[in-house]
């Protein structure tokens, strides 16, 4: 159905009238644009806030400044090429973006990767979690004013990235997952190095705990700020550490069936009853520690065998649809892959990203808070712009 010119201009006039009324009715206060270029937002996010003194009256996030058209891009590419692109959605948790997509395609095609590949996939997935959340631990410090923790976060993240480079060739974008397994096996000495790096990450977590969590100023800035009640969080579709910090015991690694190796190891889901910014920081800190324990256990029990199932040279996925979601570092990430049986890539691929849903709670959450707390809340929700805008 085409939209006529008349309909278009009426729509635009209506929007303008709405905007004018909103502006005219509120005679006091200041409209501030935490613009696309701002040190506090993790990328090009724009939040229009209306302030009364230092308190927020309403807040409106405007996203889309980083929209790259992923869902359209994948329609014209083949499966192996899509793995390359999809790395760049949540650029800090690199490998974790590829996994749900590959699992969905394996589901459609009807192949299962050998156990060694599944275990190594899980190891890389947890390393992506450590890399991503490790940066968060430092980043929250910077948003609050502590300049040093973020340098420690980058320094200790380097070790994880170097491990990824020695195994996959790429630090930020491994592009390692293939339909049916992984691209190649690990190089010699990787397991021992990984164990050393995991120990380093645990020391880093202890350092962050001393530097930030125990710090009274940090606690005063984050306790009781940005409380998300349990039901509101569930209604808005929050996922990941955000909802676990509000007391909801839900983790897709444990609760949904997945061919990856989480069921083979002994680990714990961390929750916190408070639901404030401090709780979200604390839950993520514990998750990093837990991830290092998971990786250690996986390294101990790594099965031997082939790294790739028997796959033809040209992949032709039969007609069908599949939905797979996993517990990514930022939350629940899912791919809905629709194949029409043709020789190329998927017919349509819908990408459900966690940050896009997480950010919808921002208008509700920011009502009545002070300006510094805006930054604290945005930092504690932890979204990545590539994840919101795709």
């Amino acid at each position, binding site marked *: 159905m085409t939209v006529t010119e008349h309909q278009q201009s009426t729509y635009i006039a209506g929007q303008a009238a709405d905007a004018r009324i909103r502006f005219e009715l509120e005679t006091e206060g*200041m409209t*501030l644009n935490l613009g696309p270029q*701002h*040190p*506090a937002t993790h990328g090009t996010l724009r939040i229009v806030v209306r302030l009364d003194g*230092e308190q927020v009256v309403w807040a409106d996030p405007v996203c889309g400044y980083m929209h790259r058209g992923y869902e359209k891009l994948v329609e014209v590419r083949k499966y192996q090429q899509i793995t390359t692109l999809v790395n760049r959605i949540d650029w800090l948790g690199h490998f974790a973006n590829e996994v749900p997509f590959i699992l969905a395609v394996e589901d459609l095609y009807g192949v299962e990767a050998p156990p060694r590949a599944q275990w190594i996939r899980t190891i890389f997935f947890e390393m992506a979690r450590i890399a991503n959340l490790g940066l968060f631990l430092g980043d929250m*410090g*910077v*948003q*609050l*004013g*502590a*300049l*040093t923790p973020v*340098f*420690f976060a980058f*320094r200790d993240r380097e070790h994880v990235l170097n491990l990824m480079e020695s195994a996959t060739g790429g630090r930020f974008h491994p592009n390692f997952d293939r339909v049916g397994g992984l691209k190649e096996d690990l190089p010699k000495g990787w397991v021992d190095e990984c164990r050393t790096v995991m120990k380093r990450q645990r020391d880093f977590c202890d350092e962050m705990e001393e*530097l*930030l969590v125990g*710090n009274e*100023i*940090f606690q*005063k*800035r984050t306790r009781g700020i940005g409380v998300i009640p349990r039901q509101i969080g569930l209604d808005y579709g929050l996922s990941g550490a955000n909802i676990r910090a509000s007391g909801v015991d839900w983790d897709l690694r444990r609760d949904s069936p997945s061919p990856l190796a989480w069921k083979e190891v002994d680990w714990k889901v961390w929750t916190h009853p408070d639901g404030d910014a401090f709780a979200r920081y604390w839950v993520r800190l514990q998750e990093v520690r837990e991830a290092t324990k998971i990786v250690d256990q996986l390294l101990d029990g790594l099965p031997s065998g082939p790294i790739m199932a028997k796959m033809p040279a040209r992949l032709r996925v039969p007609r069908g649809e599949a939905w797979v979601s996993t517990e990514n570092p930022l939350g629940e990430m899912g791919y809905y892959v629709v194949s029409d049986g043709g020789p190329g890539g998927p017919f349509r691929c819908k990408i459900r990203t966690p940050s896009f849903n997480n950010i919808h709670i921002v208008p509700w959450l920011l009502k009545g808070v*002070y*300006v*510094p*707390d*805006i*930054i604290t809340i945005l930092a504690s929700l932890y979204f990545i712009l590539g994840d919101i805008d795709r």
Partner: protein
Amino acid sequence: MIAALVAVDVTTYGWVTALKVGVVLALIPAGALILGYVFLMKMMSHMQSRLGPMEAGPHGVLQLVFDGIKFLQKEDIFPDRSDRRVFALAPLVVMLSTFLLYIVIPAGPRLVVEDLDTGIFFALAVSSLSVIGILMAGWSSANKFSLMGGLRAAGQLIAYELPLVLAVVGVVIQAGTLSLQGIVGAQAAFDMSFFGLFTIPSIGYFIPQFFGFIIFMIAVQAELTQTPFDMPVAESELVAGFMTEYTGFRFLFFFMGEFGTAFAFGALASTLFLGGWYIPFGFHDGLLGDLQGVIVLFTKIMIVSFFVFWVRFTYPRFREDQLQTFAWKWLIPLSLLNILATAVFKVVF
């Protein structure tokens, strides 16, 4: 002509004043550069597990000098809707307050620009001139973020003036004089005896005035708008607070003002609490005494600044209302208690 210059009596008031003004004008950027390099560039870098500037000069000592030259050659930009005159004057007001602070600080037995009888009172009074400068900067920038930074600064700086002043009152009571040379002299003559067991000669007031010292340092941290009290320049929120719209040499003035004031407050803290330019052992007279005084004072300034910057790089920042609560509900009552205790002890002992 050289004969004419030599024939001029160097001890005339005009020449001496010009010399003093010249020394202070040279001292402000020098002090700012030294503090900036040692603490901001090198200490901060090592605390963050990195090296800091290494290329400009050996270990990057010339980095700030080249930064200064870079700032000087930048375009002088005025925002479109800004108030040009106020915008241009604001950095000068801040520098003025810094400059006036250096007048009363003694660096040796004879090295002081003007030993006013109301030394410390004058110093604290002129240090609050910078508030006006910051407000002018925030308002005239025609930028909402700058305005917020300026307003926050006004609230914070005025609130922390009080603990600053009250902490000093304890020292003044104990020394018996407001003049800074007099306070140094009183500390030099102050021998602390522990119940007649042993005596520590003239170590300064920081043991008897320990709480005053702590309160003074916290208030200094707030006056310099350093983390944890750096709401006015909250980098990750307001970009650069009230300084956002300033570029080129005007920004350089703010920067030099900030670090020059840090140097001056370090000197004040050393003079009031650590004994100033005096050390109890091996102090000479005359020119050697002056030189010794300068070196001793410089060392004490470095020690005090170390703590100031150490705290700056470690802690996150307070929110504005928490900051104010801390000042009004905790620091001011504590400093009043300190005055009371000092007065009682002074009368009793």
